[in-house]
């Protein structure tokens, strides 16, 4: 059901964009009095903790932004929301933004989102196998069933790279699309041989006796940028001042979050239901203020080799700020 929806949603989003080049909602002009209301579409996961923390710390209100965070169930609902003007900004993973860019969806990154820790075995995402699995290395994944949350996206691209690095043949992997929350159960019941999970499911699998056999983000690039905040190009052209203030506030939030992991763990309780024990132990992503351009080039190359972008090549210059 979700897989079907994700596919239809992205198709519908593209159709809507092609049909009208950004829809009709009028941007409310900057009001002279009082802060400007800004709505951001986010996914209720660990990666977006800095924006919640930054809101709490007043980094946005200090810049005249009255921030409202709306949680959507994945990027597929966020991109259309940004294009229709329901959200001024959105949060999405990089590969999805690249796919959008190659289809001429008018979006552009305005700030960094989240990045890999760069530490193999201690990243916030990884390839895991269940308890007592005979698979010990990524090379052994050839010909096996591996769960990813979305096919033809950042998950399968980076997992293939892990297998390649370990000396296996990535061509024979059968990727299966399963939402992150369902992966621990899929692994336990043997529906898949391995799964690419992120926190908090990574902690859940480890607690159930599973092991991390590869850190697919660090195998792809040393400091892989995973996700970013983006806006429609129309807003960027019409209100550069607002976009600038938002970018500043996000960057302050990212730096603050990176320096205060305990506060990050605390703020998680405000928008997720991750238990206290898991919150205390889970591996947080890194939140650098800058997008790592080299890692994006690597991701783009790998994606192109996998055929994710069709015949197109993402134009990173058009996507990056």
């Amino acid at each position, binding site marked *: 059901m*979700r897989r079907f*929806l994700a596919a*239809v*949603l992205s*198709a*519908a*989003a593209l159709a*809507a964009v092609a049909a009208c080049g950004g*829809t009709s909602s009028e941007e409310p002009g900057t009001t002279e009095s009082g802060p400007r209301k800004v709505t951001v*579409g986010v996914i*209720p*996961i660990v990666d977006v903790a800095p924006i919640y923390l930054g809101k709490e710390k007043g980094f946005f209100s200090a810049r005249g932004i009255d921030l409202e965070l*709306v*949680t*959507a*169930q994945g990027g*597929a*609902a966020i991109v*259309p*929301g940004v294009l*229709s003007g*329901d*959200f001024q900004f959105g949060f999405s993973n990089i590969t999805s933004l690249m796919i959008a860019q190659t289809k001429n969806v008018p979006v552009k990154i305005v700030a960094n989102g989240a990045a890999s820790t760069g530490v193999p075995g201690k990243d916030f995402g990884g390839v895991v196998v269940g308890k007592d699995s005979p698979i010990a290395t990524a090379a052994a994944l050839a010909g096996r069933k591996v769960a990813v949350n979305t096919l033809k996206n950042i998950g399968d691209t980076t997992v293939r790279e892990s297998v390649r690095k370990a000396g296996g043949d990535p061509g024979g992997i059968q990727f299966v699309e399963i939402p*992150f*929350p369902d992966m*621990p*159960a899929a692994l*336990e019941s043997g529906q898949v041989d391995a799964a690419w999970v992120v926190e*908090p*499911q990574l902690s*859940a699998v480890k607690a*159930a006796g599973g092991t991390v056999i590869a850190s697919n983000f660090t195998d792809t690039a040393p400091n892989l940028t995973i996700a970013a905040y983006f806006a429609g190009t129309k807003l960027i052209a019409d209100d550069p001042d607002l976009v600038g203030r938002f970018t500043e506030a996000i960057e302050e939030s990212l730096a603050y979050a990176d320096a205060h992991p305990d506060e990050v763990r605390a703020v998680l309780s405000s*928008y*997720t*239901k*991750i*238990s206290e024990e*898991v919150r205390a132990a889970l591996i947080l992503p890194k939140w650098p203020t800058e997008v790592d351009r080299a890692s994006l080039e690597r991701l783009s190359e790998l994606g192109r080799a996998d055929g994710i972008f069709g015949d197109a090549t993402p134009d990173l210059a058009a996507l990056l700020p």
Partner: protein
Amino acid sequence: MSRTWSYGLAGLAGFVALLEVIPRAGLVPAGYLPPAAEIAVALGGELTDVAFWVALRDTLQGWVLGLLLAASAGIALGLLIGAVPVLRELTASTIEFLRPIPSVALIPLVVVLYGASLQSKLVLVVYAAFWQMLVQVLYGVRDVDPVADETARAYGLGRGARIVHVLWPTALPYVMTGLRLAAAVALILCVTGELVIGVPGLGARIAVAQSSGAVPDLYALIVVTGLLGVAINVGARAVERHALRWHQSVRGEVAV
């Protein structure tokens, strides 16, 4: 009446007991279906959380607004289409074509149009509940006794008076059935929209609990939506009995 209630409660107690025993006996992994006691504790936690009550309010708001829109549109259009034979023939095939389309199939469209907003939820709710109302109203109008209608006409009642005195009383039991069905369907679509799109409400809270791996909370919220469904059904039946207290179906029920 009291017997129905006690039987119902006994059934519920049996269900809760099963839910407690099955995971503890290891028939299903307790990590994915916690025992009833754990769900109850999580439910207690929910009840003390302000965010839970906000979510409940959001869901009820979508339900009430959606049901009101669907019911008024269904009744108005149903009476109009039912009363004008030409309209009925013109619309019959279209209604039969549109009616079975599941509301969730519209999710991609409403996401593009309205994003994760109340409007998205309302479109889904109204689309699903409207057909329940419309079709019942059409049946109701068709059920009008031609002799009664002719008699009213012979006594010189105008179109408006005939609608009030002949058509409406005949259609009312059908309208009430439609309303009861629409109320349940509206709740389902409300929660589904929240769950899939992420519109604020109980459904979105279920999705967050799921992505956080908070399994007991997940089931506690599911229990809440189930109880909401029961409450809505009980309420709808009460409204129905009140509105139809003159009708033989209800008078018969009371006499027993």
